[in-house]
């Protein structure tokens, strides 16, 4: 895919520039003529959506930083000042706050698409790991950003998350003090979180550059998971995927705009409209929705250190996934058994999200319960989150390795073009042999 370039400079200036800085050639080869599998579906458009969201977050963020004051006494009021007094400040602030949620929505769809079609498998392991790094940076950026308005939820969220570090034996408390710049979350903490919140998006942009580079070496995976065999399997990126991505982006922006203009606070927490008060914690403290599954895993474990380790392991597991998967077939389109476990995995993630939003002792089915099991009621959210967490880890560490060895996949098509021409079931006998060729 990264082979020869078809770019031919047209004008004298382009020839002059091409022999000095071949930037037009680079742009041409990456977004115009790049050979892309011809069968990509709409699940493949979220890379474009994510690039746009990163751009929107950076632009709106730079604007907000022009008006925001990173000071514990002034931060809350400065955000209200942005919403009420700054020209179109309400628009920019709501775009930024809801943009973060939309960014995570898109990244989750992007990740789940990857899991379904086995895009993380060889030769795209580095591409996948870079994606995991981006996800990790996104979570850090989202967390730092959520602290900045200095509302009740901001403040106490920061208290809870920074205290997680304190669970590390011996050095934990010293690291926490170092993070805080004091003996509690206070003005120094807010100042450094602002600095880091401004820095990290540019680091994300850098890793996104590497991510796209790593994508363009092996090229895109595709819904069949079968390698591109010849030029007839591909179409040029432009206009085929610029237009397809453009349409998907338009639809995505409609959803985004619906939040920004009609329900800008739907994804936030009312407690964040109260200025931070270190002397009083809100009744029920929850992180933003996109961190809820990990929060549920944290609370599922009764031991502080083990809970923190469990939460980080949930993310760390993703990094080694390419080596946990033993299946030679990439796409779950041809793995009916794996597909069932995959959809249960999505369900488990959603269940964990719901658990994270509820207090651990709340009953899942109201007015029932009464059956105490070990430390909690069997009908409580803490037990539900334990089941969810167990499935989360089992999916990656037990089901994925074993399934690849034991399942019988459906016949995989010979090439990208063949399933279009004939149904998999009626594929020629030779097609059955293709799983051994590593898709």
């Amino acid at each position, binding site marked *: 895919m990264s082979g020869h370039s078809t770019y031919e400079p047209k004008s004298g200036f382009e020839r002059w520039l091409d022999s000095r800085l071949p930037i037009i050639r680079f742009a041409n080869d990456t977004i115009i003529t790049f050979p892309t599998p011809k069968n990509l579906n709409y699940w493949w458009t979220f890379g474009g959506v994510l690039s746009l969201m990163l751009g929107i977050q950076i632009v709106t963020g730079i604007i907000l930083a022009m008006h925001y004051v990173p000071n514990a006494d002034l931060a809350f009021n400065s955000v209200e000042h942005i919403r009420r007094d700054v020209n*179109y400040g309400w628009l*920019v602030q709501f775009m930024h706050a809801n943009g973060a949620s939309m960014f995570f929505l898109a990244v989750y769809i992007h990740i789940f698409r990857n899991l379904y079609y086995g895009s993380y498998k060889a030769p795209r392991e580095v591409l996948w790991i870079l994606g995991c790094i981006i996800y990790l940076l996104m979570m850090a950026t989202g967390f730092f950003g959520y602290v900045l308005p200095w509302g009740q939820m901001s403040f106490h969220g920061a208290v809870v998350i920074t205290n997680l570090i304190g669970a590390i034996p011996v050095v934990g408390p010293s690291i926490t003090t170092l993070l805080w710049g004091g003996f509690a979350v206070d003005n120094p903490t807010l100042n450094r979180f602002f600095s880091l919140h401004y820095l990290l998006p540019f680091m994300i942009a850098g890793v996104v550059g590497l991510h796209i580079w790593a994508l363009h070496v092996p090229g895109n995976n595709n819904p069949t998971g079968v390698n591109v065999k010849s030029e007839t399997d591909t179409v040029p990126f432009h206009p085929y995927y610029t237009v397809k991505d*453009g349409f998907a982006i338009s639809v995505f922006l409609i959803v985004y705009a619906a939040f920004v203009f009609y329900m800008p606070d739907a994804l936030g927490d009312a407690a964040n409209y109260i200025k931070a008060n270190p002397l009083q914690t809100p009744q029920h403290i929850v992180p933003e929705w996109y961190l809820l599954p990990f929060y549920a895993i944290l609370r599922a474990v009764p031991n502080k250190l083990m809970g923190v380790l469990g939460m980080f392991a949930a993310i760390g597991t993703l990094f080694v996934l390419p080596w946990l998967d033993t299946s030679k077939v990439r796409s779950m389109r041809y793995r009916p058994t794996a597909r069932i476990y995959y959809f249960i995995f999505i369900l488990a993630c959603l269940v964990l999200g719901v658990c994270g939003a509820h207090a651990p002792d709340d009953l899942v089915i109201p007015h029932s319960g009464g059956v105490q099991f070990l430390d909690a009621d069997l009908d409580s959210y803490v037990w539900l989150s334990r089941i969810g967490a167990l499935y989360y880890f089992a999916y990656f560490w037990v089901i994925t390795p074993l399934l690849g060895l034991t399942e019988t996949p459906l016949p995989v098509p010979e090439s990208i073009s063949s399933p279009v021409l004939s149904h998999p079931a009626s594929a020629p006998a030779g097609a059955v042999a293709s799983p051994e060729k590593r898709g």
Partner: protein
Amino acid sequence: MADTVAGASPDLHASGEDPNRRDFIHIAAGVAALGAVGGLAWPFIDQMNPAGDTLALASIEFDLGKVVEGQQVVVKWRGKPLFVRYRTAKEIEAAIKDDHADLRDPATDESRHKPGKAQYLVLVGVCTHLGCVPTFQGGDYGGWLCPCHGSVYDTSGRIRKGPAPLNLAVPDYAFLSDSKIKVG
């Protein structure tokens, strides 16, 4: 005779099966995208203009009783110094005498104060050269002298010497009562 040809001109898009409709949708989509970007560009630029709370503080009231004859009081207005000067009879006389002198930015002393209030001169205390604050009673004319590049203003705040191009600006202001003004 080209306008008599029905349908499309086939030479423009020899290869496409329905080129005109496709061209239309490309242009329409491009224009819609440009419109959206343009629509967003304005809020993103306008946010840098003075915010509502800044504009709300854009006018101030000042009690002239704080200034005595021969004195100047400096107050802050829209982030800049505002000169309120109670001129002596001698200073007013000197200003009127120079109404028809060779002025760089001609203006009568009459036009520089409110009718019947010749003793009160209200000026934006920013040198019209590069924005420094001129010092009170400096220079050859007893008005102001800018310490930065030596611009000299007379007792009416008119530029008389030095690099500044214009007289010290008179802000919009009005007398609320005999001893109170509102600026801005």
